[in-house]
């Protein structure tokens, strides 16, 4: 089994603060520990919010990339929520 396979993808495109974080908090709850949540966002605020959210909630930011003002985050769930 590919341990880096995305378990769930959350597209918050078009949405702005507070919704990307609100939706991320909801989505992470449905994952099991070790699974990966992909977050797609267009809100530039997520560039600071998602990494700090990961640090605060004890989840791991596996990757971040930006392309044409679309932000893509992959987060591994490490703590139960």
């Amino acid at each position, binding site marked *: 089994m590919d341990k880096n396979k995305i378990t769930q993808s959350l597209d*918050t495109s*078009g*949405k*702005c*603060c*507070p*919704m990307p*974080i*609100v*939706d991320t*908090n*909801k989505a992470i709850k449905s994952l099991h520990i070790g699974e990966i949540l992909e977050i797609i966002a267009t809100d530039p605020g997520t560039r600071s919010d998602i990494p700090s*959210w990961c640090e*605060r*909630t004890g989840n791991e930011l596996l990757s971040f990339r930006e392309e044409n003002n679309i932000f893509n985050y992959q987060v591994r769930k490490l703590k139960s*929520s």
Partner: protein
Amino acid sequence: MKSMAIVVRDDSYDKLLTPFAFAYLQASEGCQVDMLFVNWAVLALTEKGAKEIRIQGDHADQDQWVREQVTKAGLPNDINALIKALKATGNVNFYACSLASQIFGVDKSNLIPEAEGIIGASWFLNEKANNADHCQYF
């Protein structure tokens, strides 16, 4: 942050957005948020009052435009619907200040069910604000 207390005094639509957005952010993360509505803002805790909330002052003519932007951002653009969304997190308590309630005509008969009740400011300041990790005033 485990708990946050917010005091809201202004009932202009745009000025309510920030405390609600901050409360939504923290509540979605499991933080306990207690919100006290004082002065005119207490009317947001009634169905009729929430419906009548508009942007006031210099930006009054931009009410509709702001609501459209709020919808685009993914939030309910109606105050009562926003309160319901926050309540659904299970982590937000809404309190009506007793003084504001008396002045502006809020009582048990028109207080929305999402509100915990009408309380004294002393209780909120000592039991909620004083014990919260963080307090904000709007």
